[in-house]
C-alpha cells in the first residue's frame, strides 16, 4: 500500500504521544476500537477553566493511517473549545491525510475518540 506524505510524516514523527492522569477532573479520556479489529485509540484532552483544550495526548495501536489520524487530531484540538472540537468530522481528517477508501474507518475512529474524550470530561466536571 502506498501512503501519503502526510500519513508518513505523522507516522514517522507522531505528535503528542503520551498519557495523562485520568484521575484529574480536567482530563477527558476517549478509548475506542478493539484489539480484535486491529485498532485501539486512546485520546486524552486537558481542559482549562474557560473550557478550552490546552493539551492533548494519544496512543494508538493500529495501522499507519490510524496512528496518523489520531496524531493529527491531537494537533487540531489544542486551543479549541469543547464545542469547536465536537465539530471536527472524520471526513476532514480523511481529506487532510489523503486516506484511501479502505482507511476511512481510521478517521471515523479518531472522530469517535475525540467525542468520547469530550463526553468524559463533561461528565467528570458535572460530577
Amino acid at each position, binding site marked *: 500500500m502506498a501512503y501519503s506524505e502526510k500519513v508518513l510524516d505523522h507516522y514517522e514523527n507522531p505528535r503528542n504521544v503520551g498519557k495523562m492522569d485520568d484521575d484529574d477532573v480536567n482530563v477527558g479520556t476517549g478509548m475506542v476500537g478493539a484489539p480484535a479489529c*486491529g485498532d485501539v485509540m486512546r485520546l486524552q484532552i486537558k481542559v482549562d477553566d474557560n473550557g478550552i483544550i490546552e493539551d492533548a495526548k494519544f496512543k494508538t495501536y493500529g495501522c499507519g493511517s490510524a496512528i496518523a489520524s489520531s496524531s493529527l487530531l491531537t494537533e487540531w484540538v489544542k486551543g479549541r473549545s469543547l464545542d469547536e472540537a465536537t465539530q471536527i468530522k472524520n471526513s476532514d481528517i480523511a481529506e487532510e491525510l489523503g486516506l484511501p477508501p479502505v482507511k476511512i474507518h481510521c478517521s471515523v475512529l479518531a472522530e469517535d475518540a475525540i467525542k468520547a474524550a469530550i463526553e468524559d470530561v463533561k461528565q467528570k466536571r458535572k460530577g
Partner: protein
Amino acid sequence: MQFPIYLDYSATTPVDPRVAAKMAECLTLEANFGNPASRSHMFGWKAEEAVETARRQVADLINCDPREIVWTSGATEADNLAIKGAAHFYVKKGKHIITSKIEHKAVLDSCRQLEREGFEVTYLDPSAAGIISPEAVAAAIRPDTTLVSLMHVNNEIGVINDIAAIGKVTREHKVIFHVDAAQSTGKLDIDLEEMQVDLMSLTAHKTYGPKGIGALYVRRKPRVRIEPQMHGGGHERGMRSGTLATHQIVGMGEAYRLAKEEMHAENIRLLALRNRLLDGFKDMEEVFVNGDADHRVAGNLNISFNFVEGESLMMALRDLAVSSGSACTSASLEPSYVLRAIGLNDELAHSSLRMTMGRFTTEEEIDYSIVKVREAVGKLRELSPLWDMHKDGIDLSQVKWAAH
C-alpha cells in the same frame, strides 16, 4: 547489502541465474523455440526432447516416473485439476471430500465450487501447532469419501504434515490422496515410491524457477484417474490440453535439478540463519512463534510481537520485504485464517510477521533485519495503549471493548 532486503521467499523466489540461462535457450529463432507437439520436423523434436528432459528432472526430485508428470500453469491449476478432476471422476463412488481449514485458497475454493455442485466437504481443524494428524483424517473418512486433500507444508507458518503416515490411512481406506507440495519441493525430501500419495501439486516459482509453470503428479500404480478441466488438443495424455511452454518447462526442470543437488546443504544454511534471526528476538517480552517450532521448514519464521499491529510494523520495516497476517494487508478485514485456525486470538494474528529466507539470504541481511525489527517494535510499543495497559498489569482479555 541491497535494499529492500527480500524476506518473502514463501511468496515467490527469484529465478536462479542458472535457470534463467537455460530458459533463454528456448526462445528465439536461433534457439529451441519449436512446438513440442510438432511431429514433422526437427524444431518440434528438439523442443520435445527438452520437455522430456525437464519431465525427468522434475520426476527425479520427487522420485516418481516421468510419465506421472502432467504440466500445468502452476500449483493453483494443479490443485484445481486434482480436486475437481478426481472428485468428478470418482463421483459414482461418493461425494464426500476431506481437507483442512489451513489449506491454500486454490484448494479451499476448489472445494467450495464442489460444494456448490452438491459435494460435501469436511474441513479438519489443525492442532495448535498447525498439524493435521493421521488419526484426524482416519476419523473423518466415511464410506462415501473419495478424496483427501492436504498440504505438505503450510505457506504461512511453514509447518510440515506427516504425509507418509496420512498416505497409509488413505490407501487403507481406498481414498484418493492429493497433496499440495508447492511449499515443500527443494525443502523436504519427497519420495513418491515410499509415500502413498496419488496426486501431488507442484510449482516452479517457489523453488527458484519461473512463475506460470507447475505440474500435477498423477500416480500410475495403482492407477489414478482424473477428468480433465482444460479441453483441447489432447496434450499431456488428454489430462491437460494446451501447447507446452518449452522455456517455462525447461526452467522448472533445471530449477528442480538444482534443488535436488543443493537442498541438503541449503537447508543446513537456512536453519542456521533462522536460528540466528530467532535468537535476535529471544530477550524481548511477549514474542510468540506461530506454528510448530520443530516440524517446520528451515527458511520460515512466523512470529507475533504482541501489542504491535502488523501493518504499522511493516510500515516501519520498509527496508525489509516481509508479509503479515494482519487484516490490513489484505483486501478482507479478517486477519489470517491460518493463524485463526491454529487458535491465535485476533490481537496476536494482527501482530504477526512472516519472514521467509532462501537461497540468496545472507547473515548480514539477517543481522540488519534483527536491528530493524527490534527498533520498530520498540517504537510502536511506546505508541501502543495496549502495551501501556499490559505494563500496568491489566488483563486485556477482561477489558470490554467497544467493537466497531
